[in-house]
């Protein structure tokens, strides 16, 4: 299949991909997305944004209402079997046969994939401190997650599609997971992962897409998002800060003044900022770049209780929106 948007290096290409569930609004709305070979691509969004719908469309578990998706240049629906042979998948909620042992499950899935040797699965199990002999029904959420990761990685697929891969993993295992992803990337594998854990995304992803209400809000490199020349500035002078001070400082926005203290966002070179405060006695001046989480929340400023608001950043970020989005773009 040829998609006009596809380039030779694309592993995933979607073109106006849309899914409407019967009797409901659009779960996914005209998604145009490209994921390149060898990259770790983060897919961000709160619950109901359309992340899992996208993944299920790519895996041909559900069919698009309109638009198309291609993986490895093959149609996600028509060539589904060939596509799935090259994919490793971890669903957001992993459900397996409870009465089977993990080893039974691994062997069964390996046979379905025509994988004669499960040596790599055993290696993964050792790294994840996983017991293959227990029955699935006895597993904690974390252990189920580990089994899911083993099933996704064990055949060394060209593309890993991981839906909330690290939820339920303890910090140590989270680190092991990050290493596995980095090793996959080093081997030339492509990783497409959806996540709420923005620290994880920031640590391992090359690019991220931000989805909201089924619509793509942004696709950008992680480093361009976090180094987009917008800084948070916290300032404290010895005397009350005159509001008109910021009138001569065009890079400043979202200014909040509280007596002798001020917080604002600032774009541009630092020199004009320093010159603006030069006549005053500056007790404290702090600048920091926004984290990915803070950037993420700018896209959900009016979203009710989005799950991304986990670290109590919302009040700060609610002031962030416009300037940073513009800076990213």
């Amino acid at each position, binding site marked *: 299949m040829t998609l006009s948007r596809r380039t030779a290096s694309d592993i995933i290409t979607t073109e106006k991909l849309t899914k409407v569930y019967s009797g409901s609004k659009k779960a996914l709305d005209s998604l145009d997305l490209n994921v390149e070979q060898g990259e770790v691509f983060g897919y961000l969004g709160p619950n109901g944004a359309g992340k899992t719908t996208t993944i299920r469309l790519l895996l041909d578990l559900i069919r698009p209402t309109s638009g198309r998706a291609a993986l490895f240049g093959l149609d996600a629906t028509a060539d589904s079997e060939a596509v*799935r042979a090259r994919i490793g998948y971890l*669903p957001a*909620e992993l*459900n397996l046969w409870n009465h089977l042992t993990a080893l039974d499950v691994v062997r069964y899935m390996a046979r379905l994939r025509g994988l004669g040797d499960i040596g790599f699965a055993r290696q993964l199990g050792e790294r994840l401190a996983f017991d293959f002999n227990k029955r699935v029904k006895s597993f904690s959420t974390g252990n189920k997650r580990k089994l899911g990761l083993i099933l996704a990685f064990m055949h060394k697929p060209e593309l890993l599609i991981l839906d909330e891969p690290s939820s339920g993993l303890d910090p140590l295992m989270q680190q092991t997971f990050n290493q596995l992803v980095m090793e996959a990337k080093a081997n030339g594998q492509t990783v497409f992962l959806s996540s709420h854990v923005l620290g994880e995304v920031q640590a391992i992803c090359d690019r991220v897409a931000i989805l909201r209400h089924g619509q793509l809000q942004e696709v950008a490199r992680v480093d361009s998002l976090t180094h987009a020349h917008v800084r948070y500035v916290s300032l404290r002078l010895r005397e009350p800060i005159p509001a008109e001070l910021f009138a001569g400082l065009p890079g400043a926005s979202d200014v909040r003044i509280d007596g002798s203290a001020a917080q604002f966002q600032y774009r541009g070179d630092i020199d004009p900022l320093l010159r603006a405060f030069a006549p005053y006695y500056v007790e404290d001046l702090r600048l920091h770049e926004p984290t990915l989480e803070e950037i993420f929340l700018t896209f959900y400023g009016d979203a009710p209780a989005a799950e991304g608001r986990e670290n109590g950043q919302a009040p700060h970020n609610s002031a962030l929106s416009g300037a940073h989005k513009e800076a990213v773009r």
Partner: protein
Amino acid sequence: MNGVIFTETLRRGWRGMLWWGIGLGFLAWLNVIAVPNVESIQQIAGLLETMPPLMMQMFGVTDIQFMATPEGYLALQLFAFFPLVLAIYGGSVGMNIVANEEDRGILDMLLSAPVPRWRVLLEKALAYAVLIVGVVALLFAWVWAGLLMVPEIAAQIDMGELAVATFGMVPQTWIVMGAAALFTGLLRSRGLALGLVAAFVVGSYFLNTLGGAVTDSILATLRPLSYFSHLDSAAIFNGNVQWGALLLPALATAVGVGIGMIGFQRRDVGA
């Protein structure tokens, strides 16, 4: 890989098959050894004769003179009752083909492997078809074992005809499984599919019963639509095996599974 799902389904299903075969077989064995001679069978037939015609039909009694023979007794005790019980097994394994795994979210993982959906349904249906044969074979073994304990009765039973009548319950059970494959292949709702399968079995049962009892009604005309009507154990014991009627449910099963495969291939999977 071809056959992987088939063998895995057999591997996981053989214990269930064993328990069903042992349980049903034990019931059948009890029914057989409960009447050690022809005289006791005639007493039971006399008791049945006092029943209203519709009630007799519901118990599978069509000819009271035939019921007073060992073959008639077996036709009543085994072939009027066990197809209905086997329908429960057929329905439950039929729901295992797609619906139960889909409902629990397991199917997502299975279908992430390079396996076409139609093959998932087909291989599972074939495996369960084999397991149904296993249950009926165990049932037959128990009946045979029971007959060895009542030689007076056994002497009047043609074991070939008994085998045909017993294994005639295989397509009867397949068709319930096939109905489950059809409805769960077409529909995502497990509850709706289960309801339709139950309606199919219960509807067939009452159509067969009422159609047999009220011979001058539309129900009698429609009776061949009931899959229960296709196993006529009395005719089999009288040496009149109607192979076409006996195997028609098997053909209907194949059609049901085929349509289920097409529907399953085309629809969305999962919640």
